[in-house]
């Protein structure tokens, strides 16, 4: 909520905001230019004969400097992982909120502490629920 409030005051008006979109536009242009130029660079160098054209099977293979895959790529993962995945996401989000709070612990004061405690308590209910339902056991 504090961050929401901050946003309201920072954004002065639409002009301010459209200027921000301008930066995104510049970034977009740079990204496109970078991609296109890296793709074109080897072609250009080859065109002027700067790099040699000596092809061999290792060089043209897909993973020239990686590991060869062993077995099929369509491996099935055990579905039990999804419990852990969901719990992980829940606590990941908790951490996302805990870090900014911890950094500004003094500034946010008792109010911030209370908000975090409530948030933590709600997540803990989920944890207790998962625990009692046996989601943490590998059967």
């Amino acid at each position: 909520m504090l961050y929401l409030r901050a946003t309201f005051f920072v954004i002065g008006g639409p002009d301010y905001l459209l200027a921000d979109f301008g930066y995104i536009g510049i970034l977009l242009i740079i990204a496109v230019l970078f991609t296109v130029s890296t793709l074109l660079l080897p072609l250009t160098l080859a065109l002027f004969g700067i790099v040699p054209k000596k092809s061999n099977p290792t060089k043209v293979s897909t993973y020239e400097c990686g590991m060869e895959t062993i077995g099929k790529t369509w491996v099935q993962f055990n579905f039990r992982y999804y419990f852990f995945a969901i719990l992980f996401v829940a606590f990941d989000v908790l951490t996302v909120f805990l870090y900014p709070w911890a950094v500004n612990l003094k500034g946010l004061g008792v109010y911030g502490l209370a908000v975090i405690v409530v948030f933590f308590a709600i997540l803990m209910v989920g944890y207790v629920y998962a625990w009692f339902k046996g989601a943490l056991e590998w059967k």
Partner: protein
Amino acid sequence: MEIGDFRLLAPEISLLGCVLLVILLDLFIKQKRILATVSIAGLIVSAGFTLVMWGTPPVVILSRTLAVDAFALFFKFLFLVVAALIILASQDYVNKFERFQGEYYALVLISAVGMMLLAAATDLIAIYVALELSGISLYVLVGFLKDQKSSEAGLKFLLLGAVASAVLLYGMTLVFGFTGRTCLMCIADFLQGMPATGILDNLALLLGLILLVAGFGFKIACFPFQMWVPDVYEGAPTPITAYLSVASKVAGFAVILRVFFVALGAPDWMSLNWGMLFAILSAITMTVGNIVAIVQSNIKRMLGYSSIAQAGYLLVGLATVGMATGSDTSGQSGLIFFLMSYAVTNLGAFIAVIAISNKIDSDAIDDYAGMGRQASLLAVALTFCLISLIGLPPTAGLIAKIYIFSGAVRHGLLWLVIVAVVNSCISAFYYLRVVKVMWLGVPPSKEKVPSSWALRTALAVCCLLVLLLGVVPGSFVSIAETATRFFGS
């Protein structure tokens, strides 16, 4: 940030506390009926807080994200009543699922919290969060039976709901991008500052507003976004179908009212355009709903299409609000009264269907033959609610239709009212067919249809409210008129 702000959120916070209690109790308690009692108690406490706050001057809290005004409080109370009736009506039904009864109650309550926040939200971000809070719990509830139909319904609802959310979010980003604000009152201020034809030049902003209509249109199931209704209504557990068709739809109308007539209703010419948009949507929605309902043989599907048609009548109210100028709130109050009457009527019809279908284990209309003799009271209640859905005296439906249509006529929507009246006549055909089958059909057995006292109480409350709204509408009309007081209007 004021600590006092949280005091004004007492209804939501107390209900959320109740949800956590239900989840924790569910882990330790074998007797699941207690959970239903706890849920009802939580709803009553929350409703008590809402009633205490009724009549306090409107304020916005938490950095202009939530409003506490008569409008929000009215809808909060309505959602609480609907959730309580749904839980009462589920008492027979929950035996169908051996496991996960606690989760069922918790999810119903969570989605009620989401809808309460939705009615109060005055900020695009808060609206989205509230919408998802109610939506995600409903996705789970729809697939709760875990049989083939229910899972299919749940998956369909999830996928289409996600698409609708994406469309809504895209609309919100466009509105935010071109106004630079997320709070509705601030958007209204910004639009008022624009030159009179500014919004039509600004096509991106217009596109954003149209996408908002699409996103909310999914929630209320109005014309081009109604495809999900029949399948989802048929597959979902019947109490959840009732919940979807009543609470979810009412929440959608509440948020549309707030967004379109707080944020975007400022310049008169613009509301006029919205009025016409909603009028056309309304005419198509009610015609599609009624005509397709005629050929349905499953009562849940039929009530699904009927709820699409009812959304069409409700849109007449939105169109009236758009057409009205100045301080005339007859459109809003008509719409709110119609929402009230629709909620109790449709809920009553669904509760009767829950009781009957639970016994005969079928949703086919033909299997309802002879219910008049097998279960007289249930059949009387269902007949009464269906009559109210048509809009015949002495029921809530009649008064609601007169109220909403007279407002529309006064604002130059006579053509729409004629379409609506013709539609009501068409709808009488399929509603009365159920009545005919029940009373004139030959029952296959003489066996009585049992129902629990909880379900009977819920049904009695619904029928009583339908009757009261139809016979002594005066006090309810004045409540509806009070509830039109938005913050910032």
